[in-house]
């Protein structure tokens, strides 16, 4: 019980260090922990350290491990989802390189909407119904 309490306190301290930008301190503290003490939180925090240092592949692997150890934790899931989004070519601000100023395709155009409606109306009429009563 006492041991668990200490562990929790330590993780809070490490987290604070990461938030304050003292990545090296946090990293040393994480490295000093023995392998049996390494819970999902350890992997998550290591992932955050790696991400802040720009070690993307390591960060991705750590986040993945954290998620697989505790899939129900929303924070770990979010971190993993964000990494997957980035790996798939997603960008910050909801962009992706394929839809940056993408020229409007046929289905985007407003007039296409009208012709689609008329087409749907014709089809309905074929079956005896009516979608647009006036035509």
């Amino acid at each position, binding site marked *: 019980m006492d041991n668990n309490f200490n562990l929790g306190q330590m993780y809070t301290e490490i987290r604070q260090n990461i938030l304050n930008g003292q990545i090296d301190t946090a990293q040393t503290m994480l490295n000093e922990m023995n392998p049996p003490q390494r819970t999902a939180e350890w992997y998550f925090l290591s992932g955050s350290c790696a991400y802040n240092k720009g070690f993307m592949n390591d960060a991705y692997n750590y986040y993945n491990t954290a998620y697989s150890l505790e899939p129900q934790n929303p924070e770990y899931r979010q971190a993993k989802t964000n990494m997957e989004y980035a*790996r798939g070519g*997603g960008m910050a*601000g909801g962009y992706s390189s394929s839809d940056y100023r993408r020229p409007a395709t046929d289905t985007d155009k407003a007039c296409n909407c009208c012709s689609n409606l008329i087409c749907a109306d014709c089809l309905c009429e074929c079956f005896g119904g009516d979608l647009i009563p006036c035509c």
Partner: protein
Amino acid sequence: MFGYVKPYTPRLEMWEYEIYNSAYCGLCKCLGDRYGFIARCLLSYDLAFLTLLHSAVNQKEIDVCRQHCMIHPIKKKNCCKPCRAVKDCSDFLVLLTYHKLKDDLQDEHGFLRQFAVRFLLIFFKKYYAKASKAFPECSKKISEAMKMQREFEKTGGSFDQLSEPTAKIMQAVFEECSDDPKTKMSLRQMGHFMGRYVYLCDAIADYEQDIKKGRYNPLVSFKNNKKEIIKLGNMYINAVSVAYLKLEKNDYSHIIDNFVYAGLKNTLDKLINKSNKNRKRG
């Protein structure tokens, strides 16, 4: 940073293209004025990007005039007037090129190339002294990173580790673009990942040659797994966009958006496809 940071021109508007080109021409002129003819020959489009970023984060607009130059003797070209952005970027170009040349000297190359590098270095030593006087801290950081790179090339390591020196170099250059501490912070982050991206592009471009000649390539650990390489590149580009979003910019952000959201990805895809084709032919 040599030729990998490019816009995706099909989705660039005309005014944006004009501004981009005038930044490039202005940079060329400024290099000529500040350093001399030899420096102008080594101009790259990447620094035009940095010029735009510099003006964007400092909320300055480029003054454009129409001028002749040696390559365009008949038709006048849009060219931006000398300003701080252009001046700073010309200094960065000299710093980066000098270190690139020194690095080339250490690599094994043919006799002709070695000779050319030695010849250029005679001039660049003088230029470098001037540029490092203007940016002493940046120049120091770059030389430290170059030393680190030489050590890493001997010992090897994961790709993340190997791309660290290039990340540090770009970080040092990008952060000089602003005096505001908050902006500096975001610029540093953006430069960091831009550096990693550039290093990745360089490694992909050299991959075939390196394997053929038995030289070391940082991508060997990926065992030619193209999908993983693209995913890694995507992560870097995403991180660039995260940092970029934090910056406060003026209207030029429309142009830089194109680089960040489309240009980087386009260059990466092109490089991967090119190396695919080469392999099939071979």
